[in-house]
C-alpha cells in the first residue's frame, strides 16, 4: 500500500475521530484568512482559550454523563450558584482562599451525588431531575446575590485563576521562556508515549500504521503544539485557566482510558443490562459520574467567577447548553457508550472559535446563534451518517 492510499483509507475508517479535528482546522483557517490573520494572533488565541476554560471543564464532565445515557441540565446555574458561594466565603465571611476552593469542590460533589441518587435510586429521568435542579439553582443564585447584587471578589489569589499567567522566568526575543519549555516538554512526551504505544502494538502483532504515516502524524501534531506554544509565548504564556483545564483533561483522559472505573463507565454506557449481569454496580457508577459532574460544575463556577472577579446574578446562564453542544460536536453519542474526553475539548474549541471568529468579523449576535445551532445539527447529522455506514 503506498502512502496516499493508506492515508485515504485511514481517513475513511477513522472519519468519526478525525472529523472534528478537521472541522476545527478548517474553521480556524477560514477565520484567519477572513480576518487577515487577526484570528490567529497571540492575543486572540490566548483570550479564546481563557474564555473556553469554564465551558471545557463542564464539557469533560458532561461527556461522561452522556456516555452513561443521561444528561445534566443543572450544571450552568449550579456553577453560577457555587461561584457566588465562593465569592461570599471569600469576601463576606473572610474564609481564606486555600480553604474556599476545596469547600466549593466538595459542595459540588455533594450536589452532583444528590442528583445521582435521584436518577439512579429513585429512577427519575435525568432530564427532569436536572431541569428541576436548574430551576432550584437559578433561584438559589438569585437568593444569595439578592441583597448585594454583584459580589466583588478582592482576593488576588482567587482572581489569578481566571486572569493570571504562569511566570515567564525570562523573555527570549519577546517570547515567554517557560511557555516554550512547557511546549517542548509536551512535544517530547507526546512523541515518546506514541512511540512506546506503537512498539507495544507491534510486539503483540496488532495492526499499526506504516512508518511513513506514523512519522507524518508525529510531525503534524508536534507542529501544531509548537505553533500554539509559540503563539501563547508571544503574549503572556500559559494562563492558569489553561493549565487547570489541561490538568482536568489529562486526569479525565487517564481515568477514562486506563482505569477500572473508566472501563466500567463505558461498559454501563454501551449496555447497562450486560454491565449489571457482569457484576458492575450500575447505580454506583451513576453516582460517581454525577458526583464528578457536580465537582466540575463547581470548578467551572470558580473559573468564571474568578475571570469576572465577581459573582453576578446571571452567572451560569446557558453554560449547560454550551457544554452539551461541545460534547456532541466532539463526537459523543447520545446512544451511549461512545465519546472521548479529548473529543469534547475539541468540540468546546470549535464552538468557542466560531464565537470568537464571528465576533472579530462583526457578525450580529442573532446570526451567531443560528450558525452555532447549524454547526451543532451538522455535527450530529455527521455522527448519525457515519454510524449508519458502519452498521
Amino acid at each position, binding site marked *: 500500500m503506498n502512502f496516499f492510499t493508506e492515508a485515504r483509507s485511514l481517513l475513511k475508517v477513522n472519519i468519526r475521530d478525525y472529523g472534528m479535528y478537521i472541522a476545527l482546522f478548517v474553521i480556524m483557517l477560514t477565520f484567519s484568512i477572513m480576518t487577515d490573520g487577526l484570528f490567529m494572533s497571540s492575543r486572540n488565541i490566548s483570550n479564546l482559550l481563557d474564555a473556553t476554560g469554564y465551558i471545557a471543564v463542564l464539557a469533560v464532565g458532561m461527556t461522561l454523563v452522556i456516555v452513561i445515557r443521561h444528561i445534566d441540565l443543572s450544571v450552568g446555574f449550579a456553577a453560577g450558584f457555587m461561584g457566588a458561594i465562593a465569592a461570599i466565603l471569600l469576601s463576606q465571611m473572610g474564609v481564606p482562599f486555600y480553604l474556599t476552593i476545596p469547600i466549593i469542590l466538595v459542595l459540588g460533589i455533594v450536589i452532583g451525588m444528590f442528583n445521582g441518587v435521584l436518577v439512579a435510586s429513585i429512577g427519575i429521568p435525568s432530564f427532569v431531575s436536572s431541569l428541576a435542579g436548574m430551576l432550584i439553582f437559578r433561584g438559589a443564585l438569585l437568593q444569595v446575590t439578592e441583597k448585594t447584587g454583584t459580589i466583588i471578589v478582592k482576593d488576588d489569589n482567587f482572581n489569578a485563576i481566571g486572569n493570571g499567567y504562569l511566570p515567564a522566568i525570562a523573555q527570549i526575543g519577546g517570547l515567554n521562556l517557560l511557555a516554550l519549555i512547557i511546549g517542548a516538554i509536551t512535544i517530547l512526551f507526546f512523541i515518546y508515549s506514541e512511540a512506546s504505544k506503537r512498539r507495544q502494538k507491534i510486539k503483540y502483532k496488532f495492526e499499526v500504521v506504516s512508518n511513513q504515516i506514523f512519522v507524518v502524524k508525529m510531525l503534524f501534531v508536534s507542529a501544531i503544539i509548537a505553533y500554539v506554544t509559540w503563539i501563547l509565548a508571544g503574549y503572556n504564556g500559559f494562563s492558569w485557566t489553561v493549565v487547570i483545564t489541561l490538568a482536568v483533561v489529562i486526569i479525565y483522559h487517564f481515568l477514562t482510558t486506563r482505569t477500572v472505573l473508566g472501563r466500567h463507565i463505558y461498559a454501563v454506557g454501551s449496555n447497562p*443490562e450486560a454491565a449489571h*449481569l457482569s*457484576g458492575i454496580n450500575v447505580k454506583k457508577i451513576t453516582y460517581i459520574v454525577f458526583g464528578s459532574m457536580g465537582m466540575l460544575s463547581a470548578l467551572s463556577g470558580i473559573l468564571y467567577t474568578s475571570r469576572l472577579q465577581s459573582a453576578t446574578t446571571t452567572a451560569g446562564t446557558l453554560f449547560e447548553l454550551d457544554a452539551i453542544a461541545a460534547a456532541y460536536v466532539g463526537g459523543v453519542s447520545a446512544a451511549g457508550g461512545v465519546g472521548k474526553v479529548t473529543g469534547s475539548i475539541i468540540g468546546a474549541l470549535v464552538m468557542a472559535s466560531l464565537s470568537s471568529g464571528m465576533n472579530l468579523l462583526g457578525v450580529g449576535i442573532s446570526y451567531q446563534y443560528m450558525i452555532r445551532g447549524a454547526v451543532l445539527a451538522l455535527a450530529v447529522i455527521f455522527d448519525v451518517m457515519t454510524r449508519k455506514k458502519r452498521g
Partner: protein
Amino acid sequence: MSENILEMRNISKSFTGVKALSDVNFQVAKGEIHCLIGENGAGKSTLMKVLSGVYPYGTYEGDIIYEGNVMNFSRISDSVKTGIVIIYQELALFPDLSVYENIFAGNEVKRGGIIDWNETIIKSREMLQKVKLNVNPETPIRELGVGKQQLVEIAKALSKDVKLLILDEPTAALNENDSENLLELLRDLRDQGITCIMISHKLKEVISIADKATVLRDGKTICTLDGAKGEITESSIIKNMVGRDIEDIYPKRPDKKFGSPILEVKNWSAYDQELGRHVVKNVDMHVNKGEIIGIAGLMGSGRTEFALSVFGNPKNYKLEGELLVDGKTRSFKHTSDAIHAGIAYVTEDRKGDGLFLIQDIKSNVTVANLKQISPGGVVNENEEVQVASGYKNSMYIKASSIEQTVGNLSGGNQQKVSLGKWLFVGPKLLILDEPTRGIDVGAKFEIYTIMNKLISEGMSIIMISSELGEVLGMSDRIYIMAEGKIKGELTAEEADQEKIMHFATQ
C-alpha cells in the same frame, strides 16, 4: 363443519438463508378450535405471522386461501379487515388507558372524525358481556389481573367482527381458574361460529378443547390429528412433536466423578413484581461438583428466571427459600456477590444483555474481572492483551485481532467471547442459558468440547436448553421445568425425548 375457512398451501419462509418454514400445509375448518403444537422454534409463531400479514405477501412462498379466495396481505390491517385477528402472548394493551379505550384502540367509534365516547362506552359494555367480563369499562387496564386482560383482548377482537381468532399461548400466564374460564369462553365463541386457532404448550388443555390439532416440527407439518376420531392423545402428540433423530455430535466424557453439592436451593420461589405472579415456584434442586445439569422446558417455563434469581437477582424478584453455595447459606444483593461466590451466568440473549457489542474482544473478555489485572485501579494493558489473546487462542475465536469489535463477529464466536469473559472470572458453577442458540454445528461442537474440558478441571455446569438433543447428549442429570416449577427429574440413563416432553407439557 366441512368447508375450510382457511387453507395454507405449501408455505415456505426463510430468514437470511435459514428455513423457518418449508412447505407447510395447514387447513382449518369453519367453526372449529384448531390447536397448533410444536417445540420451541418449530415454526408455529412464524406461520401465524405469515397468516396475519406481519410478514407481507411476497416475503414467503405458497398460498393463503381464506374463505375461498387467495389472500395477499401486505400488512396486519389487511388481515384484520377480513376478520383475522391475532392475540399475542405478550398482550398488546395500553396499561394506563381504560378498558373501553383499549377495546376500540385503532378502531375508534367516530362521527365526522370526532370520537363518540358515549357510544364507545355503550358498545364496549356489549363486548364485555360477550366475553362474560364483569368490570366497569372505565377501569384502567393496569388494575385488572392478567386473566381479565386476556378477556379484554378477546373483546377487542370481537369488536373488529372477528371470524378467525388466533391465540398464541393464551393460558401461559394464567392460573388454572382463569385458564378454565378462557377455554370455556372459546367453546362459547365456537358455538357462535367463530373459528379459533390456538397455539399451546399445555397438552391437557389441547386434549380438552381441540377439535383438531396440527403438529409442526422443524418448520414442517408433521400431521393433523382429529379429535372426533379420538386421535388427540398425549402420547400421539408427544410422539409427533419430538420424533427427531438425534445426531451423535456430543463429545463423550470418559471418567465421571461427582463431588459434594456446589449449589443447592430449597423451596425456592421468585415473585415478579412487575408481572404480579410467581415466575419460579417451590423449586428444590442441587448441582454436584463435576456435574452437568440440564434444565429442559418450553419457552416461559421459568428456566431463565430461575437462573437469574440465583445469580444475584438482577430483576429484583421477591425471593423465598434457601440458597446454599458450597454448603453455606447465601443471599446475594447484587450480581457481583454471586460472581464472588463463584457463580457465572452466560445469558441466553448474548446480543441483548450479554455482550458489549460496540466494544472490542479484549474489553468484553476482561470486563467482569477487570480488578484482577488492575493493580491500584489502573488497568495493566499488557496483561489484558495476554488474557484476551489466551482465550482467543484456546477457544479458537476467529477474529482479525483481539481489538476487533464484538458486534462484527459471527454468533458462534460471540458466544465464545461470552464464555471467555466468564471463564476469566474463574467460577465454580457456570450457568449456560441456551449456549448454542443460533450458532452453526461446528461451533456447537467446539462449545460442547469446552464444557467437557471445564468439567474435567473441576467446574460444574447448569445448562438451560430448549434443544432436547443437546440436553440428552450432554447432561448427567436433567430437571424439567414448566410453569416455574420443577415437574420432573431424570438421570441421563433414564431420560429420553418423550419423557422430557411429557413433563414439559404438563
